[in-house]
């Protein structure tokens, strides 16, 4: 147990809005992230969810794991529907049809629904400045339909549409930096979070709910099935991703970047790639190449820290 940062789990809100009995795989960290986030947001929340793992596992008709208003929308328009809900609530409150109160409107989608298919709806919603939270659960491929590559899949990962073999090394492009794309909209709050650091996640969700205007959260969610990972390592791998620089945790509040979990010396990338079957084919040279790139990216973040951009 290293890098332990959980001290007061008893103080975590117990108001569970995502009940047991959902059909997520064993050791799914994405569903853990959903549960923790909605424990923080509480009952005054409305969710618009794009197609993806979280939709099929939580709401297989006629059951639902949600005990808050939740709507399933098409793959591309989670952000558009969430912004519509927010605008609708605002006008209803203005006309006096419902009491004025703070309602968190959440748009949620996976990395496919955010980085590939839903990016124009997301960009529109962020640009219009709706008071909503958009959460991307990043499990780095289309896991729902059977591990197809997305633009969020990291370099070298083997998926069914970027299989590793004699000629191919797996995914041949680098992970798209959607967090920075969201930050480029000059919205008040952008952050990356991971359920492996639950108190950091909780703090970020609270901040995102508090700000006036759009907030974007990019949540790292380990997928034991798609990454060919032992289910019990799902939390550890999230911690390793932060410590090796594969998924640095930072937040951008009103344009000011702050690294939340500082790693003065990044761990060797081998620690992160070794337990995962999707990286098993990589040789040392490729891993060194990826490591170099991750180190450069991390240095870039460190240089930006504290600056307003």
């Amino acid at each position, binding site marked *: 147990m290293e890098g332990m940062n959980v001290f007061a789990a008893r103080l975590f809100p117990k108001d569970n809005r995502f*009940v047991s009995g*959902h059909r997520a795989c064993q050791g799914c960290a994405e*569903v853990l992230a959903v549960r923790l986030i909605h424990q923080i947001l509480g009952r005054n929340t409305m969710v618009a969810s794009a197609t993806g793992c979280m939709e099929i596992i939580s709401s297989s008709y*006629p059951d*639902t*794991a949600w005990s808050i208003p939740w709507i399933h929308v098409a793959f591309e328009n989670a952000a558009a529907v969430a912004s519509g809900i927010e605008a609708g609530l605002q006008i209803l409150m203005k006309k006096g049809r419902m009491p004025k109160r703070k309602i968190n409107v959440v748009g949620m989608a996976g990395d496919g629904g955010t980085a590939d298919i839903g990016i124009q709806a997301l960009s529109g919603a962020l640009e219009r400045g709706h008071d909503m939270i958009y959460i991307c659960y990043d499990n780095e491929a289309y896991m729902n339909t059977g591990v197809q590559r997305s633009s969020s899949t990291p370099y070298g990962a083997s998926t069914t549409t970027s299989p590793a073999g004699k000629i191919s090394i797996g995914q041949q492009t680098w992970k798209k930096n959607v967090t920075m794309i969201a930050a480029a909209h000059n919205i008040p709050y952008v952050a990356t979070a991971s359920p492996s650091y639950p108190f950091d996640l909780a703090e970020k969700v609270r901040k995102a709910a508090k700000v006036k205007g759009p907030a974007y959260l990019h949540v790292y969610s380990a997928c034991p099935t798609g990454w060919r990972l032992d289910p019990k390592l799902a939390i550890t791998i999230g911690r390793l991703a932060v410590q090796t620089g594969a998924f640095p945790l930072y937040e951008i509040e009103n344009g000011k970047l702050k690294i939340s979990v500082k790693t003065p010396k990044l761990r060797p990338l081998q620690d992160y790639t070794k337990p995962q079957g999707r990286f098993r084919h990589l040789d040392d040279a490729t891993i060194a190449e990826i490591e170099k790139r991750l180190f450069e990216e991390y240095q870039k973040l460190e240089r930006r820290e504290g600056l307003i951009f």
Partner: protein
Amino acid sequence: MATQSAKPKWTELAVGTAITVPGSARQNRTGDWRSSRPIWNHEECIRCGVCVIFCPEGCIHFDQDQPGYPSADLEYCKGCGICAHECPTACITTQEEEE
């Protein structure tokens, strides 16, 4: 799995096939997916709650009566083993289920 005795006719469905019962997934007893169950050793458990917070199912709770050790709701526990792996005192062991 889900125990629906009689399927509703299409005329009986809500508009937009909305689900009107919140949290009705509780009737899925996902515990039968499990191949091994977590066992807490109460002598070593420090009741820190790491297992409670990291359970993807949300099925580990502190017992209501004192001294309040955590325990898993085996109706839903899928046996992923995250609690046993993350426990700081390694007080949770996983035991194979026997038929």
